[in-house]
């Protein structure tokens, strides 16, 4: 089994910078977290600020106090794929992981709040259409 390693924070920031169309509509203060599902000790966060997307690497404080809007929880194999794709087709890898179940995308805000905060493009890129109820 692969060891759970989060992507390099600088590469994670660059990945967001490479897809500005997904992030430029986000309100300042919007936060998207990434954790390792098997050992969620640390959390990598895309943080939308006035100057664009910043990255924070901090201890994972648990779901309730994570302070993120979306939380991507990846199993070890998916995490390895995310790390490998961070400089390339990252959002395709994330979407594929979400669809296969290797990545759980937790929504810590209601859809109307997410839409109001400008998450439409990012949710679409993550394949939100796959996550309908009762299929």
């Amino acid at each position, binding site marked *: 089994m692969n060891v759970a390693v989060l992507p390099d924070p600088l590469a994670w920031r660059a990945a967001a910078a490479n897809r500005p169309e997904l992030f430029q509509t986000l309100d300042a203060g919007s936060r998207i977290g990434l954790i390792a599902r098997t050992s969620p000790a640390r959390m990598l966060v895309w943080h939308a600020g006035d100057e664009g997307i910043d990255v924070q690497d901090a201890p994972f404080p648990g*779901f309730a106090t994570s302070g993120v809007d979306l939380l991507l929880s990846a199993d070890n194999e998916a995490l390895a794929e995310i790390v490998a794709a961070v400089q390339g087709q990252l959002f395709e890898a994330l979407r594929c992981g979400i669809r296969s179940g290797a990545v759980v995308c937790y929504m810590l805000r209601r859809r109307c709040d997410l839409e109001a905060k400008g998450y439409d493009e990012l949710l679409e890129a993550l394949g939100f*259409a796959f996550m*309908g109820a009762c299929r």
Partner: protein
Amino acid sequence: MKPGEQKLPYLFQPGQFGRFKIKNRIKYGACCVSNYNTRDGAITERELARVKVIANTGCGIITNQGAYPDPLGEGKAYFRQVAIYDDKFLPQFEKIAAMIKEQGAMAIQQILHAGRYGGIDLGYCVQPSDVPQTLPHFRPPKIMTREEIRDCVRQHADAAKRCIRAGFDGTEVTSFMGYLLANFNSRFTNQRTDEYGGSIENRGRFMRELIDGIKQATPDNPLIVRLNGAELMDKWGGNTEDECFELMQQAVECGVDMISVTVGWQEAPESSIGRDIPPGYWNYLSERAKKMFPNTLVTFGNRLPDPRMANDCIRDGIFDYWEVCRPLLADPEMIHKAAEDRLDEVRRCVGSLNCLSRLFRDLPYTCTMNPALGHEVEPEYHVTPATVKKKIMVIGSGPAGMECAITAAKRGHEVTVFEKADRIGGNLYAYANNDLARPDDLHSIIRHYEAVARKLGIELRLNTEVHAKFMRSVLHQYDVCVVAAGAPIDREAFAHVEGHERLVDALDVAHGRIQAGERVVVIGGGKIGLTVGEFLRKNGAEVTIVEQEKRIAGDIKPSFKWRHASWVEELDIPCRTSSRVTRITEEGVTIVNDKGDRSFVAADTVLLASPRKPLHELLHEFEWMIDELHGIGDAVVPRGLEQAIQEGFRLGVRI
């Protein structure tokens, strides 16, 4: 014994459930909450009228839809769900129990605490642990304390007592599809470290206490528990199938009287009950339950819509009772038609999941196939004999035209359907032929129309196009003309594009009238363009979809949008969104996106799939040629199957 009962002897054989004799092996499942009631949980006349139809379905056991058991509404999943936390609700439940029992059925009341999917009026939902939602229309979680768990069990027991006092014969609790019981059972949502979490023994404790509490409160009445045979959540850390069956074992050992085997959670990353799942796919789960618990009754029905399949399953020991709901939403007469050997007249559930799509938009449920569902209380939706019998001509034999023709004929009108093609069905036929999910479901609609039209004596005049000249030739022969001729693709919208004469109508390809080449560009990423494009790609063509909007699938229902999106990905179909075609040549098309970037896609066939234009000209031309003139379906506004059927029925019922 009726002829159909002889053909389906296992389904129609009597059964025994506890001290209750059951007239057949069919259980009406509480698959959907109707959302027809008041915001504070009281049952409405609309609901009672609906229950009367359910009571008359002919099922041996009828389960009334889930009622939430707590006064705060933490268990409430739907805005207009019924409540049973107080005696004030009893009079209406008494009416429901009486209606069911008057028809000779056993009456079961489901108690539904939605857990993770509950608290719809509150700012939170209750769960065993703090596991956030994956579907953002649900509420953020609040962890239940031990005291709250004990209260919850007591509320269920009190609710069960209330059900029996109302006249129900038994009760049911449900984990389906990810409700509170499932939340405790599952490793995904139960991460507690106390006696209610951790081991499977501990995770099952809440269920055992629930069963025990209800059994103690209602010792003389059977209890059914609906439990997942597969959560489909195991990829997210939920229970494996083996664990699901261990939990069933706990329920059986705890003395539950019937196990209802179910599949999937609402948020599961896999399909469970949609049209893309073949009928019978999940039978193995029920078979496993029956083998494991031969002395406990097992009921099952997920994605098992056909009475003949259910009969064979009972014969083969796969389950004891067929649990059926959605097929009876589509056709409440299905059991009677099966008993009378009239299965060809059954209006099948096509698994569009319109019912659930509506619930998750906080709307009352309706049915694509049954336009009267939800309107039972309204006399305007009842098929009653016409006061004045009329001669009606219907132009077009798609779903709108056939629905109108059949409804009008049932009322005593003399109906003739004119169809320019050599078969009925209109564009539904093309849709069925190109559908990747389950073409037979869509073809079944056409077969149903054919069978019923034949029995009602509706004249079908195929290969007959109706235009002004034809109308003049039948002047004064008809009292009513209904234009249901659909909406063709609007080529005029592309008349300004260089090379537009090379455009091929996507519907011509879908109908098989024109063969597409090996490299295809489809203009329009809506329902028609995607369906045709996916089919061509599946059969080996290179397909590119060009859509002027930002997203594809804009006109597709939420319950099926995800399926098209995934087919497009799986089949590797490039989608050029926010783009338009500016030039078409023999070699291909030139495309410009919203940033002004120009590109070329090689193609030997360019299909036009959008927009569609309703045939208003027929309405204008015929206005002075007939006493009554109506338009329905796509001929008025291009939409979809549901609207076609609804409008056809609504006109047919009032002409």
